[in-house]
C-alpha cells in the first residue's frame, strides 16, 4: 500500500511539530548569519537524538528504533519544509546504513551507540570531481603492512567539516570507471595525514574537501568486503539519494504552499493575483508535478525497506523526479512572488539555494534519468 501506516503518520506529526518549533527557517538564517562552522546546531542535533531520530535506521537489537527508510524519509521531508540543517542524512541515514549492515562487531560497538546518542557525526566521502560519479573513484588505498595507506582528494563531502569520522570509498584494485576493486574505510578525522578544507556553501550548511595524504589505517578500518565494496556503497548512496529526494519533496511542497498563500493575498490591478487564470494554470500544473514527485519518493522509500539492494530503479526515479520538480517549484515560487521573491527578506530564495545543493548531491536529475534508462534497457 502506497500510504503511510499509523506509526509513520505519528512520526510525521511529531517531526512536523518538532521542526516547526525547534528548527524553523529562522534557525538556518542564524547559522548563516553567525557563520556557525559546523553548519548545524549541535544542541538541536542532541534534541533530535532525544526524539530517537538518530536511531531511525539502526536496528532495535543494536540500540536504535529500526523505523526503516519510510520513517527516515518522513523526517527528511519535514526537515525539507523548514530547511533544517542537521547531519541526519550523513550520519543517521548513510553511516548508520553502512555500519548496521556491514560494520564489524568492533565498529558497531564503537560507533552505533554514539550515532544513536547524537554524539558522533560521520560523513561519507565518494566523489572526487565536479560530477557525481561513484564508479569514477580514483583514490587509492595501497596495502601497507597489515593495513592500508590512503591518498587522494574527496570533493564536497557533506558534513565533512564537522565529522568525527568519515566513510571513504577508495580503490584497492581496478581503475577509475570500474565497479570492481572498491573498498570502504571508516577513518577518524583526527588521523594523521587527513585534512579538511571547509567550503562555505550556497545553502549555508557547509561541506568539506578532504585530502588524504598517505593516511595510514589498519585492516580494522575496512567496512564490508575488501575489493568488493561497490554493492555496499550503492546501498549507502541509495539511502542518501532517497533521503535527499524526500527532502526535495518537502522543499517543493513548502515553496508551493508559500506561493499559494501569496497568490491568495497579493493584489494587483484591483484583484487578488490568484484569480488570474494565467497564474492558476501554472499553479495547478506545479501542484500536479509536486504530487507526482511525492508518490515517487514514497515508492522509493518503500522499495528500500523491502530490499535495499533491489531498489535502485525506484530510488533513481525518485531522485530524478524530486530534483526536477523542486527546481520547477523554486523557479515558479520566485516568479510568482515577483520582485519580493528576489529579496533576502523572505525565505523563498533559501529554498531555491538548498534545492540546488540537494538536487546536485549524489546525482542530479540527468544522472538518475540515465540510470533509469539503463535499468529499463536503453
Amino acid at each position, binding site marked *: 500500500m502506497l500510504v503511510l501506516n499509523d506509526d509513520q503518520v505519528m512520526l510525521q506529526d511529531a517531526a512536523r511539530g518538532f521542526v516547526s518549533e525547534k528548527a524553523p527557517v529562522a534557525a538556518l538564517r542564524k547559522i548563516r548569519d553567525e557563520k556557525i562552522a559546523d553548519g548545524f546546531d549541535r544542541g538541536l542535533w542532541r534534541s533530535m537524538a532525544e526524539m530517537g531520530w538518530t536511531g531511525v535506521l539502526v536496528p532495535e537489537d543494536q540500540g536504535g528504533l529500526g523505523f526503516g527508510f519510510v520513517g527516515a524519509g518522513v523526517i527528511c521531508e519535514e526537515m525539507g519544509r523548514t530547511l533544517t540543517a542537521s547531519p541526519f542524512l550523513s550520519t543517521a541515514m548513510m553511516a548508520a546504513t553502512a555500519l548496521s549492515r556491514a560494520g564489524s562487531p568492533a565498529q558497531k560497538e564503537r560507533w552505533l551507540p554514539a550515532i544513536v546518542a547524537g554524539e558522533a557525526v560521520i560523513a561519507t566521502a565518494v566523489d572526487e570531481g565536479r560530477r557525481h560519479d561513484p564508479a569514477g573513484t580514483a583514490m587509492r588505498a595501497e596495502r601497507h603492512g597489515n593495513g592500508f595507506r590512503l591518498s587522494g582528494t574527496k570533493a564536497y563531502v557533506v558534513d565533512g567539516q564537522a565529522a568525527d569520522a568519515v566513510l571513504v570509498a577508495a580503490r584497492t584494485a581496478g581503475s577509475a570507471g570500474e565497479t570492481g576493486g572498491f573498498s570502504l574505510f571508516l577513518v577518524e578525522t583526527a588521523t594523521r595525514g587527513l585534512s579538511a578544507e571547509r567550503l562555505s556553501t550556497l545553502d549555508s550548511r557547509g561541506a568539506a574537501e578532504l585530502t588524504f595524504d598517505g593516511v595510514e589505517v589498519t585492516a580494522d578500518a575496512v567496512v564490508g568486503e575488501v575489493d568488493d565494496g561497490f554493492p555496499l556503497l550503492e546501498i549507502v548512496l541509495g539511502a542518501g539519494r532517497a533521503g535527499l529526494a524526500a527532502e526535495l519533496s518537502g522543499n517543493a511542497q513548502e515553496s508551493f504552499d508559500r506561493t499559494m498563500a501569496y497568490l491568495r493575498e497579493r493584489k494587483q490591478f484591483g484583484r487578488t493575483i490568484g484569480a488570474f487564470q494565467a497564474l492558476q494554470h501554472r499553479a495547478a500544473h506545479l501542484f500536479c508535478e509536486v504530487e*507526482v514527485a511525492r508518490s515517487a519518493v514514497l515508492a522509493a522509500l518503500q522499495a528500500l525497506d523491502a530490499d535495499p539492494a533491489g531498489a535502485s530503479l525506484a530510488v533513481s526515479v525518485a531522485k530524478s523526479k524530486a530534483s526536477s520538480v523542486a527546481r520547477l517549484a523554486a523557479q515558479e515560487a520566485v516568479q510568482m512572488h515577483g520582485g519580493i521573491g528576489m529579496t533576502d527578506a523572505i525565505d523563498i530564495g533559501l529554498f531555491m539555494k538548498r534545492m540546488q545543493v540537494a538536487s546536485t548531491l549524489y546525482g542530479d536529475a540527468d544522472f538518475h534519468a540515465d540510470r533509469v*534508462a*539503463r535499468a529499463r534497457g536503453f
Partner: protein
Amino acid sequence: MDALEAFRRETRAWLDANCPAEMRTPVSGDDDICWGGRNFVFKSEAQKVWLARMAERGWTVPGWPKAYGGGGLSHEEVKVLKEEMRAIGARSPLESFGIWMLGPALLAFGSEEQKQEHLPRIARGEIRWCQGYSEPNAGSDLASLQTRAEDAGDHFVVTGSKIWTSYADKADMIFCLVRTDFSAPKHLGISFLLFDMTWPGVSTKPILLISGKSPFCETFFDGVKVPKANLVGTLNRGWDIAKYLLTHEREMIGGGGGGLLGGRSPGQVAAQEIGTDGEGKLADAFLRADVARAEVDALAFAATMARYKDEAASGGKGVGDRSAVLKYYGTELNKRRHELLMRTAGHEGLEWEGARSNDGERPRGWLRTKANSIEGGTSEVMLDIVAKRLLQLPNA
C-alpha cells in the same frame, strides 16, 4: 496478510488452469478487445471461453458485489488479481463503458431494481453501453446541454442530439444526460436516463477523425419514448451522477498515460528499433535523453495512480477531485509518449495504408492521442478544477 497470500496462490492456480493460451498474447489492436453486447462477434473461441469463465467467477468486475454479478473482492484482492493476470500476460476478458462508468454510477445512485436488471448483464458482457454526454453546443461547458426530456405522464419524450458518443453505432443502450427543467439554474435541471439504442427515434452517424477512424458518433433523438422507471436517481439531480461519473472517467483516461502497465515504453521501443551502442545505450543521444525523462515521469505517475487508489481505499473515500490531476497528467504523458514513438519511427511512421505499417498503425495511434487532452474534459478544464477545488484559488 496470510489470507491475501493464500488468495494469491489460489488465483494464480485458477488463472493458469483457465486462461487460454491465445488470451495470454498482447492485444494488437482495437479488434482484439472483447467489448461484449448483443451484436458482438467473438474473434476466437478462446476469447468467448475466457469471457465466460471470468464472468462465471464474477471477475470481469472483481470489485462489484457478488449479488450483482461481481467477484466481491476487496481492494487488495483486486490488486492481487490484476498483478497475477499481468504476470501471465492475460488479456482483460471484457472492456466496456458499462464496467467503467455506468456500473459504478448504478451502484452509487441506482434503485435496487435497476441494479438487478443492469449490473449482471454488464458483468456477463451481454449489453454494451454508450455514454450520451457532450452536445454540439455543450463541450467543455457540459452543463449547458439542451437535449430535452418532456414529461408525458408515465414516460419522457426525449428530443435533441449528442456528439462524441463513443461507439454509439455499436452500443445496445445509452446512459444519457437530458434537461428536464429549463427554468432552473443549468446544473439543477438535468436528469440521468437509460434507454435502448434500438427504440424508435434513435439514430447515429459516425464521425471520421484525423486518424481515419470513427470511434465517435453523432447521436440523434427524435421523440424517443423512455419509461419513467428508467430515470436513475432523483429528477433534476442528474448532474450529481454526471459529476461522479466524470470523476471515474478522468481516472480511467488518466490511467492510459502511464504507458508502462501494458506494452513497452517509448525508450524500450526505440532501443529495439534504432539499436544500442556497445554499452547498451540507445544510439540516438538526443532521443535517449527525452525517452529517459519520459520514463522517469511515467514511472512516477504510475506510483501516483497507485498512491491515490491506495489512499482512497484506506480512507474509504474516492479519488474525488484529484481525478483531475490524473486526467491532466496522464493524458499529457500519453501524448508525449506517442510523439516519442513517432520520432523513433522516422520514415517508418509516415505510411498511412499498407501491410508494412499495419495500415499506418503508429501515425494513426499518434493522431488519436491528440484527443486525449480534450475528451472527458480538456487539460485546461482539469487545471481549472485543480486551481479552484484543490488549491481554492479565488474566482476571477
